[in-house]
């Protein structure tokens, strides 16, 4: 945890991040034989057949598939919020168990805390890591600026639109400086216009921070617009059926030049 804070101060010094080189090579994340079977009384659901995946540091990977094919289950297992029935999750060549601030999950509902204002929401993870107040505020301001939410520090989540809440949630996740961002249909509840803008913003943030991003969607266009790689899932039982590499040039979103 302390180490990840150290990283944080470095990434602030190079604000803007244009001189960070993608830490190419090396596996950021290895998924080895991860499977999940839910047993509830008589009903047994094979949510995920054993999955093997290797994801490089800084890679943008989209999980694509209809609902019920185990995408959320896999993300929750990677985040350590759910136990796998078998297999190992290996982050930076070390097997991990349980949650860790090196992997942060973003939800469709943003899941901002309604009792905290936006500034305090973004500081939440840093507060858990006992980062001193001044430092916390500075880091939060940096990431709120990155998601274009400067000026909304004192607003409460209910005062923000759905898109703004998602951006605040992204800032909250980035503030912890995780290696891996796990995004579970983060824009699924937004209108098409807001969604396009946020896709562009995520691409910008990704190229500025070079996080490894796992992005779940059931929208083919979104997957191709964002991913270096699109991994296609099929349901009943949940499993991976295709793994595409997308070599389109970046930035791909038309909206990109609107962003500061």
């Amino acid at each position, binding site marked *: *945890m302390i180490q990840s804070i150290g990283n944080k101060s470095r990434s602030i010094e190079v604000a803007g991040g244009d001189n960070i080189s993608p830490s190419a090579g090396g596996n950021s994340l290895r998924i080895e034989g991860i499977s999940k079977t839910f047993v509830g009384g008589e009903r047994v659901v094979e949510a995920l057949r054993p999955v093997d995946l290797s994801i490089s540091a800084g890679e943008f990977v989209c999980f694509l598939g209809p609902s019920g094919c185990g995408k959320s289950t896999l993300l929750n297992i990677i*985040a*350590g*919020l759910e136990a796998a029935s078998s297999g190992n999750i290996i982050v930076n060549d070390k097997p991990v168990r349980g*949650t*860790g*601030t090196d*992997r*942060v*999950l973003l*939800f469709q*509902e*943003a*899941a901002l*805390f*309604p*009792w905290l204002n936006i500034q305090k929401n973004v500081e*939440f*993870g840093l*507060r*858990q*890591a006992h980062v001193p107040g001044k430092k916390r505020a500075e880091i939060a301001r940096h990431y709120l600026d990155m998601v274009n939410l400067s000026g909304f520090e004192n607003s*409460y*989540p*209910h005062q923000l*639109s759905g898109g703004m809440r998602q951006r605040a949630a992204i800032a*909250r*996740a980035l503030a*912890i400086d995780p290696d891996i961002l796990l995004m579970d249909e983060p824009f699924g509840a937004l209108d098409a216009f807001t969604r396009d803008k946020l896709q562009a913003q995520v691409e910008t943030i990704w190229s500025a921070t070079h996080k490894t991003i796992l992005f779940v969607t059931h929208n083919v266009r979104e997957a191709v617009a964002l991913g270096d790689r699109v991994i296609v899932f099929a349901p009943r039982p949940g499993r991976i059926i295709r793994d595409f590499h997308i070599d389109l040039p970046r930035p791909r979103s038309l909206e990109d030049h609107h962003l500061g």
Partner: protein
Amino acid sequence: MATPSISIPKKHVSTRWIGKLIRQLLFYVLLLVIWQLLASAHIWKDYLFAGPLTVLESTKALYQDGSLVTAILVSVRRLALGYGISLILGLILGLAIGSNHYIEETLGSLVVALQALPSVCWIPLAMLWFGLSEQAMLFVVVMGALFSITLGVDAGIKNTPPVYIKAARNMGSRGLALSTQVILPAALPSILTGLKQGWTFAWRSLMAAELLYNTISLGSLLEGGRDFGDIGQIFAIMIVIIIIGIAIDGLIFQPLERMVRRRWGFAV
């Protein structure tokens, strides 16, 4: 979320609010007139029924000899102190019951059982254990509020949207920090329901207990009115007790509820 669509209904609401106020005012004026007419008609004996003018006289007398203000301060202080103790104990108990299955099965079931007991039923026990004393009054208040608050906290924890807990754990929140910074605040809407029920129970049983304890307080003034055959005083104190109840609800609980409903109201 656009401003115009908010400001138009707001204006509408404010005119409706004034209309309601006027109707209520008319109602209470009418009530006062009927009350005075009934008193002037002398249908009941004067020591059984006091008109509004008599009640006003009694209130003035109680105010002027200082006993009204002292009594209000004494009773409200007992309520505040006992309620504060219940609040702390209730938060701890509720958190324990809500987060541990074994504590819930055992202690939780006991709290549910004790909650079923009308809070005035604690008064005889309080008198026996503490005598006619300040501690007995406090004990009655604590027992009145404690179980409602505990069950409110417990219900709040059980109904917390799991996504808040997941998000918090994912960001490194554990143990006490998770409880105080996430679980309790997330449970606030339910906790507030328990807090509100707790205070009404505590207030009612305190008034009942004070009837038996003859140091100056609202309850003892009420009982005093009976002892001295002062029907004006009885009516006056009853009205004061009603007003205090409305004031605590309107100044503390309603604003809190409005704030919580607004902030917590949006879909997570």
